[in-house]
């Protein structure tokens, strides 16, 4: 089903390209309505004219931006009029954000709809979707070869990180990736399940993703400290920006937390808060690099 829809989208896209070919070549004025789309465009060497929620992007995503991008409002309900004013020739938006505004956006410019959270829950489902979305974006802006080189860069970086980890005698260790999921008074964790991008990156750099609970639609399950008992023989990596530091402090102050084998053996690491786990190939590479640096 999902594949068929993606195929349909691609087909429509190519048809659109074929029709539009004489008047417009590769799009120059692109608007990104989700952070991964913005990051991907930048990775492809584009300078997007507009993007949604730039303040949030700068807090949570570490991929640097070229100057002077117009903020078009929230990711959920970006200002259609401001987008129209930018006179874009391509708008990139994931299908979980583009419901109602899709038809309207299409009146303004060609719209590329990505599909970052496909329904299937197999290993690496979200990672594969991320790569697919990136390729589709690269094709849409006419930078196919540049896109492939970014992907190759990511893969080869994974390879060198894998080697570095093996040299540091960390090859094959079990790692759990956690983000905050509760309140300061009742802290909880979100542990990434096997279908998430984070878990796949962990696997690709030669480690094992430890949290093996039932895969969830969006790639994580919400749990308390007790769940960590099941993965305590491995390593734990927290990813959180400073707004959540009180919650994590509270979490790590618990008696039971202090008695986990991974804590006693000092196998807990903190990754910087702007390590975006729902991003594109560059975010995935940065996550892998930071995880490796923290582990070696």
């Amino acid at each position, binding site marked *: 089903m999902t594949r068929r829809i993606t195929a349909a989208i691609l087909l429509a896209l190519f048809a659109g390209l074929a029709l539009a070919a004489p008047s417009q070549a590769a799009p120059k004025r692109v608007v990104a309505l989700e952070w991964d789309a913005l990051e991907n465009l930048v990775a492809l060497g584009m300078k997007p004219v507009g993007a949604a929620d730039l303040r949030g992007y700068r807090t949570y995503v570490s991929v640097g931006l070229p100057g002077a991008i117009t903020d078009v409002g929230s990711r*959920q309900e970006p200002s259609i009029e401001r987008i129209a004013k930018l006179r874009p020739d391509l708008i990139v938006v994931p299908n979980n954000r583009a419901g109602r505004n899709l038809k309207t956006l299409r009146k303004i410019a060609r719209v590329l709809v990505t599909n970052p959270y496909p329904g299937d829950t197999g290993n690496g489902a979200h990672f594969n979707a991320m790569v697919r979305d990136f390729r589709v974006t690269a094709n849409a802006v006419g930078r196919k070869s540049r896109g492939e080189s970014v992907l190759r860069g990511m893969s080869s970086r994974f390879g060198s990180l894998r080697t570095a980890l093996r040299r540091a005698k960390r090859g094959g260790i079990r790692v759990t990736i956690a983000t905050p999921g509760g309140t300061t008074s*009742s802290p909880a964790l979100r542990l990434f399940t096997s279908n998430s991008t984070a878990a796949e990156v962990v696997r690709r750099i030669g480690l094992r993703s430890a949290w093996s609970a039932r895969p969830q639609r969006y790639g994580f399950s919400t749990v308390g400290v007790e769940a960590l008992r099941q993965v305590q023989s491995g390593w734990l990596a927290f990813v959180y920006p400073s707004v959540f530091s009180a919650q994590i402090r509270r979490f790590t102050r618990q008696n039971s937390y202090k008695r986990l084998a991974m804590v006693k053996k000092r196998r807990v690491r903190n990754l910087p808060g702007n390590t975006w786990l729902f991003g594109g190939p560059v975010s995935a590479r940065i996550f892998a690099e930071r995880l490796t640096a923290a582990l070696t």
Partner: protein
Amino acid sequence: MTRRVALFALAGLGLLVVAVVANVAQGQGGMSLSTVLDALLHNRDTLEGALVRDVRLPRAVSGIVAGGALGAAAVLLIAITRNPLAESATLGLTAGGALAVTLVAAYASLAPGAPTIAVAFVGVMFGALLIGTIAAAAGSAPIRIVLAGMAISLALGAATAAVQLLRETETSSLFLWGAGSLLQSGWEQVRAGALIGVVVLIATIGLARALDVATLGESTAKALGLRTGMTRLLSGLAATLLTAVAVGVAGPIAFVGILSAAIARAARPRGHAAQLAVAVPWGAAIVVFADVVGRLLFGLQTETPAGVICALIGAPVLILAARKLRDGGAPVVDAAASAARWRPRAVALVAALGLGAAIASLCIGELSVGPGEIVRSIFGRGEGLGSLVLELRAPRLCVALLAGACLAVSGVVLQATIRNAFAGPELVGVTGGASVAAFVVLLVVPAAPHGVLPLAAFAGGLAAMGLVLVLAGSGRTSPQRLALVGLAVTAACAAVTTLLVLNSQPAASVAITWLTGSTYAESWAELRLLAIPAAVLLPAAWLAVRRLDVLMLDDELGAALGLRVGLARVSLLAIGAALAASAVAVTGAIAFVGLLAPHAARLVAGGNHRRLLPVAMVIGATLLAIADAVGRIAFAPTEVPSGLVVALIGAPYLSWMLWRGRLAVA
């Protein structure tokens, strides 16, 4: 204490013990029973010992504290409002707590480092003040106060949703707490909650005698030398504190209070001390039990909030209670409206305002467009960006106008058939059912074609209303019973939506936006989708204006006038529900239009439905059109969902109208 009361109390304690044992035996750590037992009795210093002692035990105890507090709070609230349906959630207290906690999570600098209980107390106090003002002005008609409480919850919930949308990532980690979770990270919070809870409970027992006297009636109490005002005030304060403890320890949990107080009443206690003796252990048992059931049903792989299960257990019980409710009871009519006359000039003013707002909305925005450009565009001779901008603004304005009109008419029809000026599509189950269906599409199958969402929401809304009708005993039912069953279904739907949003951060804001309702980015296709049912249903409602007049009055009178009351009520309810479901399917769960537009219309058009219906339509359309324009322009480029703007206009209007006592019991 009678034997029956003692028996009930012991049964509650027994269930509590079983639930606590089962609760402590459950956990995500994969520990065997013998490990747990061993950890409990011997191994203090191991990981397992710490997990059982500092995670599992406080979890069970937090259930006891929260449930007991909610049970005691309900006993107090029922006593001071003399209303069997009063409890922390139905009166809007927990919604206040949830708003405060969400605010502090989003803007940490508001109260750096403050414990959740303290933050929750401020919010609960706010909710208590709102409902207290209403209760003081209004007396004690049960359904009325509960509907008012639900309306307050709705308004506070809209504010909470606004904060969640503005601070999407900061508040996303609150979903677990917001659904009522017992997850604890040690004793600190539970201990504080238990301490406050016990102190307040003791004080409450001290108040019990005074409450016994106070509930005998104002004059008797005075004769016995009691200051009932003071007793009520202290009881209210105690209930507020107890609710804050529950919200702080376990998040907002609904229906536990009503349930445990109902069980306490079944024990036929003499006096409030005996009531507390039953309600407190039962409240505790229900919450701990719900936690066990949730984890049995949904597994241990991810947390299942106990609050969701409480709502799902509580809703059927509330429905049963509603079915037992005797018919009769005074309808809630609009006092101001009964006095209001037909005021053509005011109506003309409203219509002019609507027209002006519509034109202004087309002209103002990121790009200003002159009226001349509008005319040129309408005749297909517009050009460039101006015409494109109009092409963007016109459809959403039209959808806002039509959806507002549909919601308002739906409110008029529902209020007349349920004979309650507080009825509205958002309180009788339509909106709740539509939300559940929409959430399933948005979060579980987001790849579904875009046309599926409105259809599913429409079907969900109608299905929920159908369920309400069937459960309430369809045509023979009393309006009060309908309203109650509607509330129960609405609350159960809210529980399901909370569960769905829990593990879906990247897509959660889609769902929250839907829940607030928005006319953002509507296109002509959506207008067509709405226009088709509206073209059938609006005339159908118009043809029924006489029946609405009669239904509003009295069933017997209606029958005497030759009206088949049951049939008329069911078919009109269906029309009202379908109107709201069509609007909500296109815009999301916009609240307050259906609730308040009819009221505002009554002020200028009086109670005659022939005039009321069209005027309400105009007011509803105007309200949503203005909200759409304000939401688009005020913080550009950040869009504020129009449903939220309506709530921000509607909530103060509601408070004002309640405060002025404009609604009275006939």
